[in-house]
Every structure is written in structure tokens, then in C-alpha cells.
């Protein structure tokens, strides 16, 4: 009844006009947000680069104390060969460590859910490894591990495996209890339950842990490099920073730092994309991104 009355009194036109306006406003707001998400950080970056540059110029700071952004950029270009070699070494160790962290972390998590005894005996030590700062363990590792690469890997692994272990364990134990009952009614074996129920349930948790572990394995690799120094396997980015520091080659320090930060961002983005691709069809987290 009320609808009919409003329509008769011509209220419908006002209402539809208001709706159209509202819709237009909403679209503009959304477009603004879309652009702003990229534009605003870029603006902040430009502004701080400019400010940095001005401070250096106005105060006539020599570049062996604080190089301007322009100087860092030219160093990045001229030293690219050297920096790129260092990047390859650090990146390789990071990726290897991440791989070992995935295998070790997820593998341990699966063992934990298969055997409560195993979990009870080992989990406390996983926690101890996690909470002890790597910087204090690393020197010891390099005393006993002859091979530099192995030592670096161990350090990076210690830092990176825990988020994968704890997230995956949580995921494996988060199966829906009705689904668990259903699997029992249909006589699923332990193995079938693991493969068809627990692992798919754990996947989003695992991927969350993986994204954290990616950043951590880079941190682990860099810290271990600082501790290990050079020799044997050539020098990575962290060692490049140390060495450039000894020589007061500050621009190169900045350039190497920039590359490390870039690598971290690259790893995070890559893992986020992988995660999105794997979950986009069914998981809530991916659903929100799509809209």
C-alpha cells in the first residue's frame, strides 16, 4: 500500500533520482580509493626523496656521510654487476632456506598430527628454537658447520620454519567435525583423511605461514651472512654492505640495502599471488579480494 501511494504522489521520481545520485557518488568514491591506493604512497615517496635530496644539498653533506638519492641511484647503476652477483647469492640462499622450511615445517606438522607422542616430545624444542634470537645461535653454528652454504641454510631455516610449522599444525587440526564424522562413516583410512580432508583444510593456514616465512628466510639469510663473513661461496648482499661500510662506500651500502628491501617485497608479492591463485576458487579470503 505504502509503495503505491508514494508512486502516485510522484515520490518515486525523487527517490530514483536520489538513488542515481547516490550510486554516482559511490562509484566516484570507489574510483578515488582505487587511484589513491597507488597515488598516495607514490606521492609520499616522491616527497621524502625530494626532502632527502634537499637536506643533502642544503647542508652540503658529503656523500661518504649521507649520499643523496641521485647518488644512490647512479651507484646502483654503476655497481650493478657486483650488486647483481651478490643478489644472486643471497636470493639463492633465501629460496633454498624457504624450500627447506616448507619441507621441514609442513613435514613436521604432518608428523605431529599423526603422532601425539611425537608432537609432545618435539614441540617444546621447536618453540625454543623459535624464541632464541638467531644472531646468538649463528656464531656457534659456523663453528661446527664447516660448509658455509650449509651454515647459512641452517640459520635461515631456523628463522623461517616455525610459522609454517605452527600454522600448518593449526590448519591440520581445524577440520570440520561433521566432515570428520562423515569420513569415518565412509570408512576413510588415516591416509585418506590426511590427503582429502586435513591437507586441504590446512592449505590456507599453510599459505599464511608461507608468506611470513618468505620474509623471515630473507632475514635469516642476511643475518647469517653478517655472522659468517666472506669466503668459500662468495659474498651476498649483506656482506656487500659490511664490506662497503669498511671502505666508507656509503652510496653502495644504500644501494645494497635498496636491493634487499626490493627482494623482500618481491618475495612477499610473489607468495601472495601464489596464495591467491590457489585459494581464489573457494576460500573466503580470496572471495573478498575479487569483489
Amino acid at each position, binding site marked *: 500500500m505504502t509503495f503505491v501511494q508514494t508512486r502516485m504522489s510522484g515520490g518515486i521520481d525523487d527517490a530514483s533520482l536520489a538513488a542515481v545520485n547516490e550510486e554516482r557518488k559511490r562509484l566516484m568514491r570507489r574510483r578515488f580509493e582505487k587511484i589513491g591506493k597507488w597515488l598516495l604512497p607514490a606521492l609520499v615517496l616522491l616527497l621524502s626523496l625530494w626532502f632527502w635530496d634537499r637536506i643533502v644539498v642544503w647542508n652540503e653533506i658529503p656523500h661518504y656521510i649521507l649520499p643523496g638519492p641521485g647518488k644512490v641511484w647512479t651507484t646502483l647503476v654503476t655497481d650493478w654487476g657486483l650488486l647483481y652477483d651478490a643478489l644472486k647469492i643471497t636470493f639463492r640462499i633465501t629460496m633454498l632456506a624457504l624450500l627447506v622450511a616448507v619441507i621441514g615445517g609442513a613435514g613436521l606438522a604432518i608428523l605431529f598430527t599423526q603422532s601425539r607422542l611425537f608432537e609432545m616430545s618435539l614441540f617444546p624444542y621447536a618453540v625454543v628454537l623459535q624464541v632464541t634470537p638467531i644472531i646468538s645461535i649463528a656464531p656457534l653454528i659456523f663453528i661446527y658447520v664447516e660448509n658455509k652454504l650449509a651454515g647459512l641454510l641452517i640459520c635461515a631455516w631456523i628463522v623461517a620454519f616455525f610459522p609454517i610449522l605452527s600454522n600448518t599444525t593449526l590448519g591440520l587440526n581445524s577440520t570440520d567435525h561433521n566432515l570428520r564424522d562423515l569420513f569415518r562413516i565412509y570408512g576413510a583410512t588415516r591416509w585418506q583423511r590426511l590427503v*582429502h580432508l586435513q591437507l586441504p583444510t590446512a592449505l590456507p593456514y599453510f599459505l599464511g605461514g608461507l608468506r611470513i616465512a618468505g620474509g623471515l628466510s630473507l632475514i635469516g639469510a642476511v643475518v647469517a651472512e653478517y655472522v659468517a663473513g666472506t669466503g668459500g661461496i662468495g659474498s651476498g648482499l649483506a656482506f656487500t654492505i659490511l664490506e662497503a661500510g669498511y671502505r666508507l662506500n656509503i652510496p653502495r651500502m644504500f644501494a645494497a640495502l635498496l636491493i634487499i628491501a626490493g627482494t623482500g617485497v618481491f618475495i612477499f608479492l610473489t607468495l601472495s599471488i601464489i596464495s591467491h591463485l590457489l585459494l581464489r576458487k*573457494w576460500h573466503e579470503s580470496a572471495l573478498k579480494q575479487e569483489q
Partner: protein
Amino acid sequence: MDDPLVVHSRLSVLPLSLSLSSIDGTPTLVDTHNQEKLLAVNSVGKVFSKGVVALEDMQLTINEGDFLSLLGPSGCGKSTILRMIAGLMEPTTGRIEWEGGVEQSNGSIGVVFQEPTLMPWATVEKNVWLPFRLQGKTMRSMRNEIDEALHLVGLDGFAGSYPRALSGGMKMRVAIARALATSPRVILMDEPFAALDEITRFKLNNDLLELKAKIGCTILFVTHSVFESVFLSDRIAVMTSRPGRVHSEIAVNEPYPRNETFRTSASYSSYCRTTSEALENSISEAV
């Protein structure tokens, strides 16, 4: 539309050979269809840790082709007895006896829970495939069974969809398709439509009856709705509140197919009244 008739005639022929109908301990209004007995719940009791007595001396017989509803207040042990029939739990006292034994893990029991309980990472057809998959059968070899099950619940064309794209009612249809795909001896349903809106529930009630007429399965249906139990079942077992047991049985002697006409008929209301009274008595006697 012809199918139901065929099925009914087949059902009515079957029992002639075996007329050893159940000798229930319950006196009231039991109709004797002379059907073949499928399973008996024999003096079953269940005591949980901390001394919660969920069930006490429960008697129930389920016959082939039954649509039997378990009606009772919440907390009276309906889910508990269902879980024991499904083999997820052992009775503390008494026994559950299957006629001719039951092959566990063979898809001989289908279950539908209150939640659709689908695997969100799997498409509709893969969810229906699950019981077969756990028997080691490939999807290709089960193609016909899967498609047939989806067709029966009216989900043709949704095989490749993910559960999240479906409405609550459609998800429930997938769960029903999965439960019936293996042609189980009995389908256990634990308040399957309780979480749905009334319009969807009525529609699913109608479709469930149509489906049962087509395939002639046996259904044990748990509900706390008097109206739902009267509309759906040919027998209603009314349970007492905790500790639960069957207080009385009501036979709904109304022919299938039932539809909206039955829902508005005088006999429907009178059955509802009888059932309500039985439910009230069962609760007041237990207190």
C-alpha cells in the same frame, strides 16, 4: 510421475514374503505395514562421562522403506542415537541390531547433518563423489551415479560449481545427493532443514518426498518440528526429554505422494494435534 506408483506397488509386494513384523514394546497407534525389518534399537542406553544420561532403555524398529521421524525436544538424545546407528559411537547398554548385519564403510549408511557439511575446496560433483572416492573408485567410473544423484535433487548443471556459489537450500541438496549416491540401506538425517527459511524448507520437504518415492529409500529423520514430522513421515517416534527414550509411536496413515493439498487438509491438522499432544505428554511425564 509414474515412478512413485511403480515403487509403491513393489513395496507392497515385498512384505508378503516376510510378515514377521516388529514386536515393539510401545503400545500406541503402531501401524503394522508388515514391512521387512531393517534394524532394531534394542534397549539402548547412553551415559556420557560426567554422568550425563542421554538415553535410557530406548526401543525402536526401522523397517525397509520407512520414512520414520524421531521427534523430541532438543537435548533429548536424538543426535546421540543417530550417531550410534551411524557407528560413530557405542551404546553404553543395549544393542543396535542390523538385519543381516551391516557392512561398515561401504556407503551402506548415508548421513545428512544440520549443516550441509560440504568440502569448500571441492566442486559439487567432487563432493558427491566423496563416498565413492573413499572406496577407491574414480570419478569417471562413477559418472552415472554422480549425475543421477545430482539430477534427483534437482541440481543438473551445477556439477562444476563450488559450494560457496550456492544458496543454503542448494548446499543442502548437494548433501542429500551425496548421502543417496551410494544407494545406502538407510539415510540418517539430523534436523537437516532446521537452519533454512520456511519457504525453502517446504520446498525441500516436498522434493524429499518426491525423491523418496522415486528411489524407495529408507529414511530416519530427526526433527523437533511437529509439522515437519507429520508432513513427511509414515511413522513418528515421539521421544521423552532427557534421558531420552521412545514415548509413543504415531502412524501417519496418509498415502504418498503428499503435497500442498495435504498440508492444508483437515487430517493433516488432526495428525498435528495428536502428535503435539503426544509430545506434550512425553515431556510432562518425564519431568
